């Protein structure tokens, strides 16, 4: 029996091989890359994942695990001749234990669903990537996803307490536990962010936090991006620790306004700052924040007076990515990070690059974390424009590394950024990643072709 026959016998009725059924799995949210997989498998439980991974191992067939396919870096792009393990049917919250403040979930559970289920107990799951109404926790774990609240609350890795993982050779292993503290190497912490290269997480234990008692959400308008960036530095210098600080530039504001009519003022730059915590504490911090924003030269300031007003402020920010789609047929989302104090410098250089390449760039970013999201607008129908957009995006990544930052804050390396890994890491670092990959996956089957650049020079 060949591989496909065995696969179909193993999971009857859960294997897709027809062209039309495979088409939706050809790419993830980075649609510039497409590959037709050999088959798509829809397991409904961890035993089925284990059986499929073992079969792949026996036959030497590569596999890519994916959830909703929201990866913006091509992290869940299929491998030619390989299969896709689509985990969306593994979407049960296995246990929600408010006393222990944990949730044990399958990888196909959607991020926001955890907070929804935890809400009646006054708890929530902190990591909130913009894709949280759609993206799954398995994917969040693979990419160590972030969101607007990373400065204060950390990334996905900080909220994963334990994992059950199927290794690329089909062994099942438990990493971590249920406590906030463990003993021995932090293996579950290491697994988070390895982008599916070291196995498939089939069960995830998450920590939950009490929902903050009060929020104070402020929107400030500036005449320049630089002023908005400086305001962020001022906030930090005064010793405040907001839950989130976000900036949008004119192009992003216009797009968001057209899309969701958030009622934003006309501005070159908008800054959103959100304080959160016990109400007495938030009230005092709000006084300091008010002073800082006045000093920072904002010409219009709005403070949300109700939950509805707070949601209105966030609505525009959260819609910004998709809204930019209205301004241009296609766009690339970049995800570089720079030290916070060098935001101004980075933005100026991005503007210069935008002019030099003749492509518009809209900027939306998590300013508190120095996490930039330049959206490079292009038209895929015009010959050469995608290549030009990719080259411009690449220059932005180089800039981030040059300023002491990182290639990615939350989207991962995937296929999109692997060529830039040598900009950030020395050959020895990359070779070590390869050695680890080979030790755990000697046949190179798990998410082959992602993260690690093909050629690592020197050493």
């Amino acid at each position: 029996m060949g591989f496909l026959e065995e696969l179909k016998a193993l999971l009857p009725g859960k294997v897709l091989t027809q062209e039309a059924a495979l088409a939706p799995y050809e790419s993830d949210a980075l649609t510039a890359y497409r590959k037709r997989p050999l088959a798509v498998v829809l397991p409904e439980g961890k035993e089925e994942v284990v059986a499929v991974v073992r079969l792949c191992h026996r036959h030497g067939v590569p596999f890519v695990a994916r959830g909703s396919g929201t990866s913006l870096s091509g992290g869940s792009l299929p491998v030619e001749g390989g299969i896709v393990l689509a985990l969306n049917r593994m979407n049960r919250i296995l246990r929600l234990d408010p006393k222990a403040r944990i949730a044990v979930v399958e990888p196909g559970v959607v991020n926001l669903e955890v907070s929804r289920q935890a809400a009646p107990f006054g708890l929530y799951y902190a990591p909130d990537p913009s894709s949280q109404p759609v993206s799954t926790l398995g994917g969040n774990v693979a990419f160590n996803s972030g969101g607007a609240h990373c400065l204060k609350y950390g990334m996905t890795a900080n909220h994963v307490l334990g994992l059950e993982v199927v290794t690329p050779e089909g062994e099942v292993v438990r990493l971590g536990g249920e406590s906030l503290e463990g003993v021995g190497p932090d293996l579950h912490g290491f697994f988070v962010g390895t982008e599916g290269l070291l196995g498939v997480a089939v069960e995830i234990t998450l920590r939950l936090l009490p929902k903050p008692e009060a929020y104070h959400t402020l929107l400030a308008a500036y005449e320049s991006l630089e002023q908005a960036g400086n305001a962020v530095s001022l906030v930090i210098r005064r010793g405040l620790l907001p839950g989130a600080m976000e900036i949008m530039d004119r192009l992003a504001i216009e797009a968001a306004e057209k899309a969701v009519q958030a009622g934003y003022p006309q501005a070159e730059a908008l800054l959103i700052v959100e304080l959160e915590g016990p109400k007495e504490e938030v009230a005092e911090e709000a006084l300091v924040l008010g002073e800082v924003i006045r000093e920072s030269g904002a010409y219009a300031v709005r403070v949300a007076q109700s939950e509805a007003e707070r949601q209105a402020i966030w609505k525009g920010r959260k819609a910004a990515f998709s809204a930019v789609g209205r301004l241009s047929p296609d766009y690339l989302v970049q995800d570089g990070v720079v030290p916070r104090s060098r935001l101004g410098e980075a933005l100026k250089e991005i503007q210069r690059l935008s002019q030099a390449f003749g492509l518009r760039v809209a900027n939306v970013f998590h300013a508190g974390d120095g996490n930039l999201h330049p959206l490079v607008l292009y038209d895929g129908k015009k010959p050469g424009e995608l290549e030009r957009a990719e080259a411009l995006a690449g220059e932005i990544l180089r800039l981030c590394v040059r300023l002491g930052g990182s290639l990615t804050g939350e989207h991962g390396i995937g296929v999109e950024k692997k060529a830039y890994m040598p900009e950030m890491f020395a050959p020895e670092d990359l070779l070590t990643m390869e050695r680890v990959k080979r030790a755990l996956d000697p046949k190179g089957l798990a998410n082959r072709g992602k993260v690690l650049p093909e050629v690592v020079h020197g050493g």
Partner: protein
Amino acid sequence: MEVRASTLREVVEAVRTYPRLRPKGGGTKPALSAPRAGEVSLSLGGLSGILEYAPEEFVFTAWAGTPIAEVEEALKAHGQYLPFHPPLRAQGATLGGTVAAGLSGPLRHRYGGLRDFLLGVRFVDGEGRVVRGGGKVVKNAAGFPFHRLLVGSLGAFGILVELSFKVFPFPRATRTLRATLPSRESALALLERLRLLPLELLALDLVPPATLEARLGGFPQSVAARLEGLKALLAQEGAQTEVLEEDEAYWEGVRDLRFLEGSPIWVKVPAKPQKVAQLEALPLGPRRYLDGGEVLYAGLDGEGLEALRRAGLPHLVLKGAEDPLYPPPPEAFFAKLKEALDPKGRFPLG
């Protein structure tokens, strides 16, 4: 035998020279750093000093042998601190030793533990290669996160050389409330309740049999108001409350594990409030559950250690026993990482 390394080059040389090495920082966790038969002790106390510190970025980078005390002095000058509150500061603990042991103190309750604040590392692997993991910015998802692998690794994968951490502003004012309850059951029930409330306490400890200690931080007026609110809540639950006068000095003693002095064996045990009853049935000495009951630091003797093992409860011995880690890390994952990073088995564990 002891070898000292005070530069990266000397660390690389030592790794290439000696077949069995056990790294040592301040020596405050002797169960982890004391060399076993056939091992050379690699002392890293000289590999010390802060390399970069940008208060406005909430980030610093330092050599692994830098004493926690030195780091905290530098941070304090800018109103900042290490929110995971590394233990054994006064005894001379270093950054590297703290990471390798994976230890956090009582203030971890507010923002999280060591694993939440380590941003990046450079280390020397078992073949003498210098490897970097993570970075120096507060948000980063590029490449394999070797920095997290080294948390609690007991030196198994390499010698830590350089570390980058996130830090936060220290609250302008702090106050501490002690609440005594009639029974362990009532103390536990209250602890579980407090864990679900948005109180944002800096620390919340259970001191057996039936005492809770909570530390508040923030703007002075807010702290005063919240202290009154908390007092009222605790009194309603039948607790006797008192406000501790020596707030700062008291918690320094706790984070330095002074309550364990006099015990022959010191252990750290991952816990949960739901596990407290099981743990309390064991013959343990002086002890304290930190972070709302998430971790137990206990002093005990040979009998207590034996009881922990018999109960199958994971733990780490800091002092007083040869075999520090129970259970050993999972073979299917750990052994392969060890093979990749320390193929000759130069370092502890596995």
